[in-house]
């Protein structure tokens, strides 16, 4: 292992480079991004559409969407065993054990993230039985005595039906667990919802189901990719509240991706600001709001609409990532631009405790 994690760190993304090979050219979606996740915290990642937030999250699960390729960097992750691994160097077999069990993900559109052909119960059971099969078998064994009655008494001695019987017991055992989970998600009448198909539920309900699937195996890290963007504001508040409480209960570290500064203020302990594939500033949430250092962060905070004051937007447009600007990628839109910003890329340096910024205004050689 080329480098280790700090004691308090659960995950560290180091100099991550992700590029997409498209017909128009190479899209440099993520360029030397640096992030770390402390155990038990909620890290917010903010940025505009196309800033590389979602790609970074998917890459953490080694699910970089094609035609994307990881071209450099490492993602160090401390597994449940305490062993520190580089996710980008693991083989698929190990990754299958990590995905959903140690790191899981909530998607932006709950409606699309659920398979329309299976009931809610079946889809949660899939997560449970993929990773907690042994545990479920244990529970199933306890049910065996009760369930061996009638025809099953004879049938379970025939090899084919013994398998069926085992499946039936597993389903029963999982059923109890799923009801419990649905209850935790504050879903009313779980006994009925468990047999519902996704299209029969509202968006908020669907998102709760997606969260239930993500938390079914008590993952150490939860990646939430704009989970409330498509929900209306009251439901959004409920879901945020739910995530906050579940995070305490499951002792999960959360990476919360959003473009909504309000949600960030509400939920996260620390914030990482991404711009055009770079992480430009990382700081505790209070610090970001009180003392933003990077010009982009300042502009972002200024663009939060406030009653009574005119709406401000950031001049210019998000750069084309096939041909990104030289040096600091924000320089064409920056009001403090200097010559060196065009020539060199500012490194992410710590300016005060826990406050990192990548800008020549605040140091950097």
């Amino acid at each position: 292992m080329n480098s280790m994690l700090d004691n308090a760190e659960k995950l560290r993304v180091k100099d991550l480079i992700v590029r997409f090979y498209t017909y128009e050219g190479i899209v440099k979606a993520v360029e030397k991004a640096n992030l770390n996740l402390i155990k038990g915290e909620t890290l917010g990642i903010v940025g505009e559409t196309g800033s590389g937030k979602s790609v970074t999250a998917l890459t953490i699960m080694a699910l970089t969407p094609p035609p994307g390729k990881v071209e450099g960097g490492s993602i160090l992750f401390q597994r449940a065993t305490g062993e520190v691994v580089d996710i980008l160097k693991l083989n698929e077999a190990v990754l299958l054990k990590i995905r959903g069990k140690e790191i899981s993900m909530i998607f932006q559109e709950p409606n699309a993230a659920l398979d329309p052909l299976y009931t809610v119960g079946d889809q949660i059971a899939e997560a449970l039985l993929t990773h907690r099969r042994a545990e479920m078998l244990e529970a199933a064994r306890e049910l065996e005595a009760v369930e061996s009655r009638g025809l099953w008494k004879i049938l379970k001695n025939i090899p084919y039906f013994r398998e069926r019987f085992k499946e039936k017991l597993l389903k029963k055992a999982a059923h109890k667990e799923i009801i419990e989970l649905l209850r935790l998600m504050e879903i009313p009448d779980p006994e009925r919802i468990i047999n519902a198909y996704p299209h029969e539920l509202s968006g908020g309900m669907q998102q709760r189901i997606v969260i239930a699937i993500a938390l079914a195996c008590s993952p150490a890290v939860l990646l939430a990719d704009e989970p409330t963007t498509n929900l209306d504001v009251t439901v959004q508040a409920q879901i945020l509240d739910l995530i906050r409480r579940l995070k305490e209960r499951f002792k999960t570290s959360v990476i919360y991706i959003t473009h909504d500064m309000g949600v960030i203020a509400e939920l996260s302990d620390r914030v990482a600001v991404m711009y055009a594939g770079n992480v430009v500033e990382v700081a505790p949430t209070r610090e970001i709001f009180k003392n933003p250092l990077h010009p982009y962060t300042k502009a972002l905070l200024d663009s939060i609409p406030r009653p009574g004051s005119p709406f401000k937007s950031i001049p210019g447009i998000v750069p084309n990532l096939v041909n990104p600007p030289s040096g600091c990628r924000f320089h064409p839109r920056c009001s403090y631009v200097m010559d060196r910003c065009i020539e060199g890329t500012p490194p992410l340096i710590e300016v005060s405790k826990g406050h990192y910024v990548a800008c020549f205004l605040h140091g950097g050689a």
Partner: protein
Amino acid sequence: MRLIDSESPRIKELKFIWKRLRSSPLSLAGLAIIIFFTLIAIFAPVLAPPRGGRDPYMMPRFGFSPTPRPPSPEAIFGTTEGQYDLYYGIIWGTRTAYRIGLLVVLASALVGIVIGSIAGYYKGVIDEVLMRITDIFLAFPSLILAMAFVVAFGRSLDSVTLALIIVSWPSYARLIRGEVLKVTAEDFVEAAKAVGCSDFRVIVKHVLPNTIFPLLVMASLDIGSIVLTAAALSFLGLGAPTGYSDWGQIISLSRNWITGAPGNPFAYWHTYIIPGVFLFLFVMGWNLLGDALRDALDPMMRRR
């Protein structure tokens, strides 16, 4: 307000499909025809008991005279060239039709599903290679290609079956690939991967069930046309051996008698009209059923 009906959605869906089928007379006709042929195939040994000790698929003969004889009490559909019993041939030919139709469609759908889902799921180079191979098969007229394969394998019903599988899997592969491409773009596939499902599980549990309906429709339409193609091969003398109960073969035997006798063009009508009608009904039955399935399963055409 009840959030969810107490009735299981699966049952509800089946009921809905049944209702759709029932409401259209053409669909019912298709279903009736298929049931009719299925019963004939199942009860062939009762309807036309084979003579002991012979291959039941070989038609019995009433002598060796080449001139067909019209329907009579002992051979109710008459006899064709070589005194083969038409009734017997048609009854047992139903089994042959089913065997070819189902076998070819099942096998080519299976090959198509495997190739198509691998190509559509993994994309890139794998897709490119598999689809170019598919293109090669699609580049030849299927009847000509099938003939070439039958000639290469040797004349028999099994080579016809194999040849038809070889020429019909590419369209299934194409269909499934397209559907898989569409479904893999959906978030729930990504979500299934994020839960820790292996590629195999994602394909089998989440991708294929979401792509299978168009395939069902295509397969049911295909059973009819495959039997027609097999009959064409038989007619050209490339199918089953002479005397085998196979509709194409029977029609082929009537080739010399289609023009009739001098002064009576319809003298031997039974030799081609009867097997022709059965073949026609069989193909039409599957076509009607295929259309009915499409109407019932296609979300764009249904809730109207």
